[in-house]
């Protein structure tokens, strides 16, 4: 298996997480406040993808989900889909932010494993799942709606409680999952001077 192609098991992991993010859109979307960017469970799926699959597979999972939604499948919360959500809607920037988030969380999680201490993990997940997402999301909301930046910033505050809760849930879930299914993310050496990661634990029978 070259490192360019993905093994069948990796493909299946990617597909099932893309499906998981889609399933988290089923409870629907909640829109409150001035700017109608919905509050959605799907961000939880994005954070989980990073913290459980790691940066590479997680990125593919989120990208796959977004591509399917963009292609017109009604996978965004509330049964929406199509290119408009990826171009001119107020939530556009957040969606691209998800791609950044999953990479940041995946990379940092690999550095925290195998110990995965609680507070650093919360910090890492929040850095990707909140900071990175808002960094792209807020300005694009302002641009697409022709609103001053401060209105968009002010409005995004309504996401904060929910998003912080999702961060904590992600960390608690990821910790248990790494226990019940070890070897998903190869831990990265903390000092990158040696340059090589420890051999990946691979307990599954797919040789």
């Amino acid at each position, binding site marked *: 298996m070259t490192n360019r192609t993905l093994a*069948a098991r990796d493909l*299946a*992991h990617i597909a099932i997480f893309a*499906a998981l993010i*889609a399933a988290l859109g089923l409870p629907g979307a909640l829109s409150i406040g001035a700017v109608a960017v919905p509050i959605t469970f799907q961000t939880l799926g994005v954070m989980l993808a990073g913290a459980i699959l790691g940066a590479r597979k997680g990125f593919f999972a989120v990208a796959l989900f977004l591509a399917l939604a963009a292609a017109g499948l009604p996978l965004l919360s509330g049964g929406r889909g199509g*290119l408009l959500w990826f171009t001119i809607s107020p939530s556009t920037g957040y969606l691209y932010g998800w791609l950044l988030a999953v990479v940041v969380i995946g990379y940092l999680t690999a550095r925290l494993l195998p110990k995965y201490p609680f507070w650093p993990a919360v910090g890492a997940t929040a850095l990707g799942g909140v900071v990175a997402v808002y960094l792209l999301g807020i300005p694009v909301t302002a641009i697409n*709606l022709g*609103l001053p930046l401060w209105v968009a910033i002010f409005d995004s505050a309504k996401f904060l409680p929910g998003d912080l809760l999702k961060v904590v849930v992600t960390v608690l879930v990821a910790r248990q999952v790494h226990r019940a299914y070890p070897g998903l993310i190869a831990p990265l050496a903390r000092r990158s001077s040696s340059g090589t990661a420890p051999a990946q634990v691979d307990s599954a029978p*797919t040789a």
Partner: protein
Amino acid sequence: MIGLYSPGRSVVHRAPTLLKLVLLSVGVVVIGVLQQPWQLAVAALVVLTLFVIARIPPRAAVAQIAPILWMLVIVVPIQGLLAGWLVAGLMAGRLITAVALAALFTLTTTVTSVLEAFQRMLRPFGRWIDADRIGLLVALTIRCIPLVTEIVTEVLEARRARGTRGSVMALAVPVVVRSLYAADALGEALVARGLDD
């Protein structure tokens, strides 16, 4: 999983997907720079005409555009107070027109052909991206959606059957773990059926 496609045989439906994508991008940019109400009116009329040509059922069209309308009810007053009512009106007009155009694309193009168009756009990057694998991933994801919802249902049932409700955690952990094991089994089936050929 048929997506949001609204079947039809019109010119708009039959136009090549890549062409539609290009026209859509140009259209959205043009709409975005319009500064005069009359220009916007012309653009809106063009889009409306396209909807008529494509014979989109009004209900399907409204379903696509309604979420944005709701949003405007709140945003327009804010903008009106901050920047003046003409600006607010123009912004709303541009947004609705552009959204309608994008929705028209989605309503007249099958998911399959959009995905094919994406694959064609990725072809120049073929050295890094394997278009075949992407096609497989797409189908696999669509297959996995019912699999995941089944897993969620089963975990919820198991908890109920055991007379407990429990926290988000007691739902999320088993759902994720079982999804991973189900994915492993799927991966094996892919190999057994010749995927890594």
